[in-house]
């Protein structure tokens, strides 16, 4: 489905070059929900932008359904962290959600149906005519999610979408993402810096090293499919996984593409099952 192969990105400035991504390879199957977590400044956003076709990598490639990504591919939607900057302030909620659909020329009726449904599933059925700036942060991010849902993407990329909302709203939105993922049969890559979120949400968690970035560990989250904030988070297994990811992130702060050889593989860690 989604293949990242030896992806490299080096930013070249006037006086210095910054190697953000050393060499990243991983694979995401159709209908998977994968979280990507790493220490601050590890190039998560760079990676996501390369995958979304918004940024050209220096080396390697991203393949979507066997075709290399050279620009924003159709069938992919991106939800950004900065909801306030990713919505059109001059359009009401409805038009924000509907605009990307115009290009698809689905016909008025189908378009209306998609928009109505998308706003319904994110719980904004009564906010069609509000402007984004009249809504709370969490609701604005729901609009951005509704826009992605209405677009009917095969792949949904999310770049720390809940980093700027309060904790309670965040829990609601996490459950919303799990629900949407299961109902829509969409492939989700969810980038986060929050360890709990990385464990709670996904089927797999890819842990990145610090910059220049490599994949430090590809961890299967073997929690039951039915998750809820209360029971999942208080389960023993959740605690173990959380502790493991935490350790790995701590280690990742000192580990990068430059130190790869000297750090022992985490594959044998007692508390986790490595993904093969």
């Amino acid at each position, binding site marked *: 489905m989604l293949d990242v192969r030896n992806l490299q990105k080096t930013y070249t400035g006037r006086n210095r070059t910054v190697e953000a991504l050393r060499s990243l390879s991983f694979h995401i199957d159709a209908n998977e929900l994968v979280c990507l977590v790493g220490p601050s400044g590890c190039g998560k956003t760079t990676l996501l932008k390369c995958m979304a076709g918004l940024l050209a990598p220096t080396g390697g490639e991203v393949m979507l359904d066997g075709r290399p990504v050279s620009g924003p591919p159709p069938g992919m939607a991106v939800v950004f962290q900065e909801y306030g900057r990713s919505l059109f302030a001059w*359009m009401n909620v409805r038009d924000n959600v509907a605009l990307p659909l115009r290009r698809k020329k689905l016909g008025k009726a189908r378009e209306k149906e998609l928009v109505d449904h998308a706003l319904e599933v994110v719980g904004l059925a009564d906010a069609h005519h509000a402007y984004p700036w009249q809504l709370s942060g969490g609701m604005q991010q729901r609009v951005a999610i509704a826009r992605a849902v209405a677009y009917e993407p095969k792949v949904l990329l999310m770049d720390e979408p809940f980093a700027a909302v309060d904790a309670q709203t965040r829990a609601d939105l996490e459950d919303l993402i799990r629900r949407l993922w299961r109902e829509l049969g969409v492939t989700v890559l969810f980038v986060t810096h929050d360890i709990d979120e990385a464990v709670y949400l996904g089927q797999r968690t890819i842990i990145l090293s610090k910059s220049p970035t490599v994949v430090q560990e590809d961890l299967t989250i073997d929690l039951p499919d039915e998750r809820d904030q209360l029971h999942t988070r208080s389960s023993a297994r959740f605690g173990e996984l959380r502790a493991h990811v935490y350790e790995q992130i701590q280690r990742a702060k000192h580990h990068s593409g430059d130190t790869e050889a000297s750090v022992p593989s985490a594959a044998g860690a007692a508390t986790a099952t490595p993904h093969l």
Partner: protein
Amino acid sequence: MTVLTAGRRILLLLGMPAVLFAVWWFATADSTDVYFPPLSTILRKFGEVWAGDRLTADILPSLLRLTAGYLLAVAVGVGLGLVVGMSRVVRDVLEPVLELFRAVPPPVLVPVIMLFAGIGDTMKILVIVSGCVWPILLNTVEGVRAVDEVLSDTCRSYGITGPSRLWHLVLRSASPQIVTGMRQSLSIGIILMVISEMFAASNGLGFTIVQFQRTFAIPEMWSGVLLLGLLGFVLSLLFRFAENRALAWYHGLRRAQRDT
């Protein structure tokens, strides 16, 4: 409550003009100075001079030229501003030239424009364009350059490109700044409308006012000045009305940002 606030607003809006008019009225009440006739005389002349034939013979042509020049300046300013704002190369090439042109005061262009455009409406419209275009152009360039990066990425990832991007993203997000430029240009346009009619004209407000001055019809001349002031006031009211409608989202956004 709302009646009270509305009354307060009207009072604030009209208070100062009323005071100024009163001062003018009483200061010139017994004036025998030819150059400063009593306001009562000016107001009497006002009705006589402007209500009749001059409405269609002078006021209308002036307003038509102003409208034509202003709209042309908006079209050229916004169009060119989009091109310059979106392309780095064009910006680097054009910026020094634009700065030079902008520095030339439009009134000195009147004789130049007369050389190739004659002394008719074309010349007057071009003079208005030559002054009005700059604030609109420069503000549009700034507005276009300031389009949010995240929103731009959002558009790209949803395949909103080309004309759709131009309309829904670039123009709309630059609109507050474009409107700022348009507001500045409006007052420049009125000034240039009058100036262009003072050089070579057979009708129009500027022409008529100069004509009155040369024939020592001083109260009539004053009434013309009054009319120009009134015209500017009404146009800026209309502008503000249109702006409040077109940029309701922007004012709302600003208020929301202030409150948090």
